[in-house]
């Protein structure tokens, strides 16, 4: 069964460093998402991506964040200068539907980011 894969599973970084989290969405899906979950808290929307551009972003997704789909398969989340409060589990998701009607999202297993 097709699945969303994320790498790395766990990354430890120093505050101020840049981090890139990678995702390979399901191949025939058109909509891609990043969510994050701080330990023990709710899953928060960061950004959605369609047709090679950001479709929607939350207040969390400020200038230190960026997303890219560099080669038609990978979908990356870059955090430019990490802060302690960026420590969280970051989930990538993809969906064949989106826009005005969001269907089932298929999530990866997540990348745990620890900022020291």
């Amino acid at each position: 069964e097709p699945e969303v894969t994320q790498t790395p599973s766990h990354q430890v970084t120093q505050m101020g460093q840049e981090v890139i989290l990678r995702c390979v969405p399901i191949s025939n899906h058109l909509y891609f998402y990043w969510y994050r979950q701080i330990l023990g808290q709710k899953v928060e929307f960061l950004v959605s991506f369609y047709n090679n551009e950001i479709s929607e972003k939350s207040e969390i997704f400020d200038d230190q964040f960026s997303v890219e789909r560099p080669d038609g398969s990978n979908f990356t989340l870059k955090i430019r200068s990490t802060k302690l409060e960026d420590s969280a589990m970051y989930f990538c998701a993809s969906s064949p539907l989106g826009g005005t009607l969001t269907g089932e999202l298929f999530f990866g297993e997540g990348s745990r980011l620890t900022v020291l």
Partner: protein
Amino acid sequence: SQQGEEDPQALSIQEGENATMNCSYKTSINNLQWYRQNSGRGLVHLILIRSNEREKHSGRLRVTLDTSKKSSSLLITASRAADTASYFCATDEQSARQLTFGSGTQLTVLP
């Protein structure tokens, strides 16, 4: 309360019992979904109910939706220890293009 708030926050039951979790939301929605998350893992889609549906079944899962009360419930019948997980409702708001997740219910099923 925020969009997609579940209650209870935690629920502990014996194997074989039924588990009911509730979700309330605030805005108009296209659909409501329920997801499951095992500890430290990704979210897995369980069931989707559209705004014009009132009830939906999938195996041991039963979901209801009351758009007039802006609430939904997830019933897991004949629970098993393997059902132990966090359960989240997620709403697809009519004005947004993404899912908004609730705070989740931590279900523990004791063998």
